[in-house]
């Protein structure tokens, strides 16, 4: 479900008004000295096991519904996402903005929103879509990342977490934080790519629930560009449901009158 996070966050900047924003408040996690796992590989393998990643091989499709909010702007809306066979479709609906659609059919990606109209995903944005739609088992990190470094144990909220810097084969480095007790992913720091450029994003994952053998975070809270808070709360997640293949295909452009 990670695709659902980083791509969804583009919205926060896409609709950012030229108006005052109250900074949401971000801070670097404090260092801690509790640690039992000594390498990044060990943490990632243990996390994959704890989160039930092996069960993901049996998942052919996922459909999720969520509520999203951008509290500083008083924006509240809904999201729907479908992921199947390395393809995805997402629809975000926010009052005052309208529908924002994004899709990836396995080869090419597209987006349609009230501001930019219909467009193709290109460059880093397309690479991000391709990368994120892949089955992501933490233990298989070498397929996506060329390097993983254990930075130490840091505090994330009230939890202690292993901090691992991952260097992807394409794109900038990311830091993932895994709770030392549960080994669940509790925070990611990355630079997402959207139509407005690069968007530094901190995402906090919580409310994990077991679904079809996998631990799924039902709530994410992101700090976008250091100032904008975006909260996504999943209301319904279903796996292995029938999916309409047409969903992922780029819609036709509006005809010229």
């Amino acid at each position: 479900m990670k695709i659902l996070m980083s791509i969804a966050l583009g919205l926060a900047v896409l609709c950012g008004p030229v108006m005052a924003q109250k900074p949401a408040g971000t801070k670097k996690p404090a260092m801690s000295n509790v640690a039992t796992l000594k390498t990044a590989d060990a943490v990632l393998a243990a996390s994959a096991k704890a989160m039930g990643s092996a069960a993901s091989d049996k998942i052919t499709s996922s459909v999720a519904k969520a509520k999203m909010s951008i509290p500083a702007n008083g924006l509240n809306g809904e999201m729907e996402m479908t992921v199947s066979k390395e393809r995805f479709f997402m629809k975000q609906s926010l009052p005052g903005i309208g529908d924002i659609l994004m899709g990836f059919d396995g080869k090419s990606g597209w987006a349609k929103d009230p501001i930019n109209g219909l467009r193709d995903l290109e460059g880093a944005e397309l690479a991000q879509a391709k990368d994120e739609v892949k089955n992501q088992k933490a233990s298989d990190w070498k397929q996506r990342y060329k390097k993983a470094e254990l930075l130490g144990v840091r505090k994330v909220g009230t939890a202690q977490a292993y901090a691992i810097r991952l260097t992807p084969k394409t794109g900038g480095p990311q830091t993932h934080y895994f709770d030392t007790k549960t080994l669940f992913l509790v925070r990611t720091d990355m630079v997402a790519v959207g139509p407005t450029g690069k968007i530094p994003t901190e995402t906090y994952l919580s409310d994990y629930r077991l679904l079809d053998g996998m631990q799924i975070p039902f709530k994410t809270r992101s700090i976008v560009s250091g100032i904008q808070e975006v909260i996504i709360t999943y209301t319904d997640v279903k796996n292995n449901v029938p999916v309409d293949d047409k969903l992922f295909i780029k819609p036709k452009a509006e005809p010229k009158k």
Partner: protein
Amino acid sequence: MLFRTFDGLTKAQRIRTFETIWSRVKTRHWDARKVGANWDAVRKVYRPRVEKEQSNSAFYTLMQQMVGELGQSHFGVIPPEADVASDAQNASHGTGWHGMHIRNVYNEPVVVEVERDSPAAQAGVKAGWIIEKVGDTAVRDRLKKILTLKQRVGMTNVMFASAAGQITKGPIGMAMKYTFRDANEKLVELDITCIQTPGETASFGNLTDIPTTLQTTVIEGDILVIRFNIWLLTPLMAQIREAILSHADAKGVIIDLRGNPGGVGMMASGLAGMFMPKGKNKLSLGDMNMRNSQLHFAINPQPPYYRGPVAVLIDEMSLSTSEVFAGGMQDIRRAVIVGRTTGGMVLPSNIESLDGGLKFQYAIADFKTPKGVLLEARGVRPDVPVRLSRQSLAADQDPMITASVKALVRAPRW
């Protein structure tokens, strides 16, 4: 009375206020380097001076001086006695709409435009008239006091026009006597019955029930004029798209942004995209730089890919997103810009209320056009300036539209 009375601050409140102002700049200024060691040094200089100050006025001056060390606009301390906007709101007679646009023309509050079919138009108000009074309120005298405030001209013009809009509002559905000075210097008294502000109300998060209006007219045979009052996506974006789509063969398009105060920033990119040829990429209206990131106003070409000449009409009340659009379109040479210099209020800024009614305004980002021009405080300067006078307004009720039509001849075609 123009200025309100206000309570004084205790010494402890002055010190607390100083610390708040200093730390807001330290933690929220978009350029961390600018507020590094230098800003720490500023604190060391000013804190002892604040502790010694005995009066509020000296304290306010000191705070203005401190934020002035940044040498940037949109950082300012607004003493309670200078809160003209609140005063104007208090002085208005209602919330109704009359349809007049009043601006500072050679230091006089002059009606520069009367909207068609508006209550003012129906009462017979003409462009070029000076507004003297609304009821017993001496509007002209009140507004002229704003001209005595020591600040940049652009800011004065914005405050002047804003206050004029507020003070002249009348009650909805009830006639009020408006007194004007006409082109022959004769006093004219007219009864005007203000109405509810027209337009579909829309909301965008915390901005609720904002009246939105879109006017599209075709003039001179085949020139499309599009005017909208605010940059709100719903319902305006679809309506604007539809208007341009249905006039895709127009021989020119005028985007009239007079009096448009801004709104959703990225909507400017969307509108610009409608004037780009298909396949044209890599253009933008500019960049907004924040402390940790950059917001790129990328232009995505989209239907109807209008390639004909475009003019953008601006005045001192074209602010924020309107300035982003006009400044960007000017820099990439997609439109000719006509009218009066905009207000130069582009930056996203916070205005925070502090002790004793003091307000502190501070910017959290900057914005630069594609050519690197910082629009804040400078404003967008038109390619074709239009100098308004009472005479020109009396002769041609909308000389800025006339100038825009002429300017289309020299506007680029893509």
